[in-house]
């Protein structure tokens, strides 16, 4: 069971959290203007990377806040945690 550091509550057990998949997928400003393909990319296509991954977590059974974590999907080690609104840098810090 992962140990996840909520930016607001500190390190807590994974069972307090809900994973929200890939982070940083921004909803298109004007969906109507998109091709079916482009819209599909937004709705369905995922990086699913082997290695560093920016993902969303919600501290569902704690403060209820969504935040972003950077995790290596090979080692499952977390590199950093970021409250909503704060973007991880290139190095994932």
């Amino acid at each position: 069971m992962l140990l996840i550091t909520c930016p607001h509550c500190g390190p807590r057990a994974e069972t307090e959290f809900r994973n929200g998949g890939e982070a940083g997928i921004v909803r298109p400003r004007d969906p109507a203007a998109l091709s079916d393909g482009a819209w599909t990319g937004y709705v369905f296509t995922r990086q699913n990377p082997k290695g560093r991954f920016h993902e969303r977590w919600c501290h569902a059974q704690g403060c209820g806040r969504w935040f972003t974590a950077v995790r290596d999907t090979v080692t499952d080690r977390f590199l950093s945690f970021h409250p909503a609104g704060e973007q991880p840098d290139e190095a994932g810090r």
Partner: protein
Amino acid sequence: MAERIAGTSHLDLKNRPSTRGAQLRMLERPFKAKVGLRGGEDVIRAVEPVLGFALPRRVGETGSGSGAHAFWIGPDDWIIVYEPGREAQIAQALREACRGLHHAVIDLSERMTTICLEGQPLRDVLAAGCPLDLHPRAFRPGMVLQSHLGKANVILHYVAGNADRPFVDLYTNRSFADYVWKYLENAAREFGYEIVA
């Protein structure tokens, strides 16, 4: 006969078997006043005079005064707990204080119930289903933490006492009181427990 229904009413705690004088004591206090407050810095400034004490700003913290406790729930999220009966009046006072600000004041008295635990074994009993670090070094008097007990969300408030005789109030949604109560009884069996009703 129709009556006001608490989370554990159907369990008939009065006649439920338990051990007189056991180290651990359990009871439900269903009708405490609980008011939810949401808002930013401006709201904090506006309500603190009404409350008469400072709102907690960090996880684990509580603010207390004049028979009330304010729990830190999230960065812009608090629950304020009073003795029963004052919910409407408090909610009203807070709403007035927040007029014009982005805020939410909401009565949660009926949504949540309180199970009061007292006695040395309660840490081990809670640890049977709660993944928090409940060691005296980590969970100290005055603190409040949210987590889960088995499959129920809970808020744990370390009201007072010391490592040998702690008092902890457990808050959970009313329909989960049945589960939480039975869960605690099952975990407490090896220590013995007395139901106070």
